[in-house]
């Protein structure tokens, strides 16, 4: 089932001689339970694509469909609701609230999402991500890997249909990076979410079902042997 579909999406910044085509005509789709990587050098447009998918940026042209709903021209408030309901974000830097404990990070989402997850589901999430013992700790007491696991838990909270991860392993050493990728892959398969990660680390693409390369605003799918 197609969860996400981009049709002829373009994004330009500025006008006249200062016009920059950050994203040239792009078509992209992702299925439920699919783990996709978008790789490419800095400034190639991959983060622009991710923010358009996440409803943080509106495309200059084309359309974005999430679960069959065209979200391209929704107002900020409606896009905010879509983000809250359908999309989980994992960012390069820790996206945790510094003054909340791990348990309170999820409790906050529980409050704004009006309690979409029951106690058993929450417990399962803690256990799946191995953060059950970290509940009463603040982000400053956690290692980089632990912080990213909590960030993944936040992104997965209330089972969004799409997980968007922007360089989720950038601040981690190799072992922690592989650990996070393994977690994301497992959660994608177990919960049948659609996960898209943006990374410049080609070592990580082995965990993904599909890999796209972005160069100068042009997105192309890489054909390759999947061995994971």
């Amino acid at each position, binding site marked *: 089932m197609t969860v996400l579909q981009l049709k002829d999406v373009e994004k330009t910044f500025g006008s006249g001689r200062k016009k920059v085509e950050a994203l040239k005509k792009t078509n992209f789709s992702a299925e439920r339970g699919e783990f996709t990587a978008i790789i490419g050098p800095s400034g190639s447009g991959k983060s622009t694509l991710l923010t358009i998918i996440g409803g943080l940026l509106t495309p200059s042209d084309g359309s974005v469909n999430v679960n069959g709903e065209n979200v391209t021209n929704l107002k900020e*408030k409606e896009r905010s609701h*879509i983000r*809250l309901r359908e999309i989980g974000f994992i*960012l390069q830097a820790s*996206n945790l609230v*510094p*003054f*909340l404990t791990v348990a309170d990070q999820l409790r906050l989402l529980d409050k704004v999402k009006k309690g979409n997850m029951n106690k058993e589901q929450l417990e399962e999430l803690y256990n799946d991500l191995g953060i059950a013992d970290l509940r009463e700790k603040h982000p400053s007491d956690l290692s980089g890997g632990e912080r990213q696991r909590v960030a993944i838990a*936040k992104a997965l909270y209330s089972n969004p249909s799409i997980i968007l991860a*922007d360089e989720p392993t950038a601040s981690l050493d190799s072992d922690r990076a592989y650990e996070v990728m393994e977690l994301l892959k497992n959660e994608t398969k177990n919960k049948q979410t659609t996960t898209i990660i943006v990374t410049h680390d080609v070592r990580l693409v082995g965990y993904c079902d599909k890999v796209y390369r972005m160069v100068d605003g042009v997105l192309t799918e890489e054909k390759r042997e999947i061995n994971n």
Partner: protein
Amino acid sequence: MFLALNEIKKNKLRFALVIGVLMLVSYLVFFLSGLATGLQDMNRESIDKWDSTHMVLTEESDKSLFESSMSIDDKEDVDAADVAILGQVNAIARSDDQKANVSIFGIDENEFIMPNVTEGEAFSADNEVIAGDGLKDDGFVLGDEIQLSSSEEVLTIVGFTDHARFSAAPVLYGDVDTFHRAKFGEAADQNEDHINAFVIRSNGESVNVENDSLEVIETETFIKNLPGYTEQNLTLTFMIYFLFVVSAVIVAIFLYVLTVQKISMFGVMKAQGISNGYLSRSVVAQTFILASVGVMIGFILAFITGVFLPSAVPVSFDYITMLFYGIVLIVVAILGAVFSVLTIIRIDPLEAIGG
């Protein structure tokens, strides 16, 4: 409230500083309010005690009791439910080493402005007076014989009454003859009809005076025209209102700085779909908590200070006024949070997450 409380719990020192500043501002507001009320009481408490509605003074006195001079017989020209005669003169009272400014009121003991006696007995003979209990602080006691600066007369304190100060001086209540002797000395006999004013308690009916040289004014107007009364109140009220502005600015600056430090965090939250409304409510709730705690501590400190202040300091707490000022302080603090709310609304989540 969830975010607000958790942030305060985690950053106790930072928020203690905000509370500390708000506490000091509210302490100053409450203390100034107490001072304003105390100074007002010093000027008007004897008049308030009469529960009168109007005063009758001479037209040419320009609402000044001291400058007003009329005859007791003029009472026939005053048509009101309850009318009391009043003579007034200022003097310096001396008894042994004690010395104090006093205001001598000449009254008719059978009229409604006759004070209650809290200690001793009422005056019943010439030169006997009931003194305001403020004189006790100056060392005067029952039975003291008082020498007046303005005459050779000697008055005897036979009783004390409470709430008896006028224009910042304790009042000595005596009969009209005593007042005449205190004011005119040997010439008292030539001024035996002289008084300064009539005090009216109208019970809602209109007050009419059939004498063009007399003027009826409301008691509140009379009080506002007491020398220095309005100027003193306006000064203190201005200081209090200025402190409201100061507290709004302090809260605005503190919260703005705290908000700017959290722009990236708010941006990430907005990217995750948490609404401007939720984040703004959180900042307002936080301000409410900080301001309420600061105001509460400020109130307690002001109250404790009031208890330990010497009686010479004219501080009197009017709890209704203090409650009103406390609410105003909290409201202006929340207004100070508006800058932070506007900052949150303007945060672009894309910039905040580095897109």
